[in-house]
């Protein structure tokens, strides 16, 4: 599905990604985790085409997309949810969802996508995507856009950042629904245990290197502290 080969990226004399090679299989939820500055967001931006690697290749369904611009990658089936949603003066919530869908959506369709992220369409479709919306609202709209775009491969860069507990619970539901109802691959950059818990596979980055990777059942216990690890192992035994 998507493969990065020998990706290197450095800025201001600092090596941010050091020869990273990864394969993202089809129809999986993959969580990339790691400390701040480990290179997670840079890797996601390189996959979307927002940053250009110094060396290495990116293949999507066998096509070399390394030099392809962002829009071409988007039209091939790659989506990206920004960690900090972008604000626009004058562009409304309804407009951005229409742009995402590349057609004028009916009110009931807008309502479906917004209600999935806990927003009522009639209160939001005419509101501008600017500072009048809270960080949490912007984040929910960002997630709704990506759910609507329904890309074959979607990157979510720290979707939990800046959202409240209520939104966080619905966020988990959204990812679980995406997982259940589509054959798409979802890659989530996250530090959150509950998001790690919905992963099929987990990749740990550290200082621009892959520290560890594998199935959740293999990686997650290692990540948790000893008491949590004990609880997690018990759950695995109980749940078979």
């Amino acid at each position, binding site marked *: 599905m998507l493969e990065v080969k020998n990706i290197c990226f450095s800025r201001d004399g600092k090596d941010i990604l050091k020869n990273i090679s990864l394969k993202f299989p089809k129809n999986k939820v993959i969580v990339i985790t790691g400390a701040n500055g480990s290179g997670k967001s840079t890797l996601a931006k390189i996959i*979307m085409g927002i940053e250009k690697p110094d060396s290495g290749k990116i293949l999507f369904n066998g096509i070399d997309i390394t030099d392809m611009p962002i829009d071409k990658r988007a039209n091939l089936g790659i989506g990206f949810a920004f960690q900090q949603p*972008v604000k626009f003066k004058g562009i409304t919530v309804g407009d951005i969802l229409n742009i995402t869908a*590349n057609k004028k959506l009916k009110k009931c369709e807008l309502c479906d996508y917004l209600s999935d992220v806990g927003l009522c369409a009639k209160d939001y479709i005419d509101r501008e995507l600017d500072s009048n919306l809270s960080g949490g609202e912007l984040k929910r709209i960002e997630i709704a856009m990506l759910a609507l775009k329904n890309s074959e491969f979607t990157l979510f860069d720290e979707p939990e950042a800046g959202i409240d507990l209520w939104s966080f619970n619905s966020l988990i539901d959204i990812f679980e629904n995406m997982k259940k109802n589509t054959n798409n691959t979802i890659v989530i950059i996250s530090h959150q245990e509950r998001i790690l818990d919905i992963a099929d596979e987990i990749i740990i980055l550290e200082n621009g290197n892959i520290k560890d990777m594998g199935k959740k059942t293999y990686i997650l216990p290692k990540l948790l502290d000893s008491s949590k690890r004990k609880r997690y192992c018990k759950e695995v035994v109980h749940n078979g």
Partner: protein
Amino acid sequence: MDNTTPNTVDKKILKVISNIDVNKLKGAYNIRKNGKLFIRNTTPNINIVSKKDKDGIDIIIKENTKNESVHIPVILENKNINDLVYNDFHIGKNSDVTIIAGCGIHNDSHKTSEHDGIHTFYVEEGAKVKYIENHYGEGNGDGKNILNPTTVIYLEKGASLEMESLQIQGVTSTIRTTKAYLKEDSNLTIKEKIMTTDNQEAVTDFYVELNGENSSTHVVSRSIAKDTSKQQFSSNIQGNTKCFAHVECDAIIMDKAKVVAIPRIDANNIDANLIHEAAIGKIAGEQLIKLMSLGLSEKQAEQEIINGFLK
């Protein structure tokens, strides 16, 4: 064809500046063409009278007139003309009306077409006005299209006026002057949208006096300057009593254009609460990236951002 039958160019210009279909005109209207009255209609509540001492009209709206509109568009067509006109609006107490003005120039010549409309609003107590003004130029000639609108607004107690001003195409040079004098509990809202291209120049000058207690104003200017065009936005708000003002000037600058913003807020009373925000910058890279990540080309993304900004 008689001289009061609109031709194809008239129809197109009227559609652009006033969104009116000349075949379905209703209500009160006064269409001026090439410096003269073209067609006019009045209603029982709205009278339009030509001035005797100078060129222009008085629009007299009776008290308590509700949900009526007046169209007063101006057309200039292939004329070497300097059309100066004085239009005075007398808005009766407690009325609620919409006034749609605007000027469209069609200029296929090398001559200069200029329209200077001086509009004065006398808005009586409790009256509510929505004033829409569109300016537009077209044509294949190299003649200049010049529009210099002046708007003077007097708001009596509890009156309100909302002005929407739009100029997005074909005006070579414009100086837009707005002056307003507000009494107690009155409110003035101005939304201005301008786009300049090529070597066009646009100057906007707002002067608002907040003289009555609890008067308020909200001025929003959004503009886009492309190519080698130049824009200047000045605002001068005088808070003379307990009042509120918010002025917001946002400009997107592209190519080799230049934009100047000159804000001035004078608080002449301890209870005057005045805010001015001005931001000028190019289209944010992250906005382009976001829209491109949704599948739009860079050009399409730029156009969506501009369309949204000027909506």
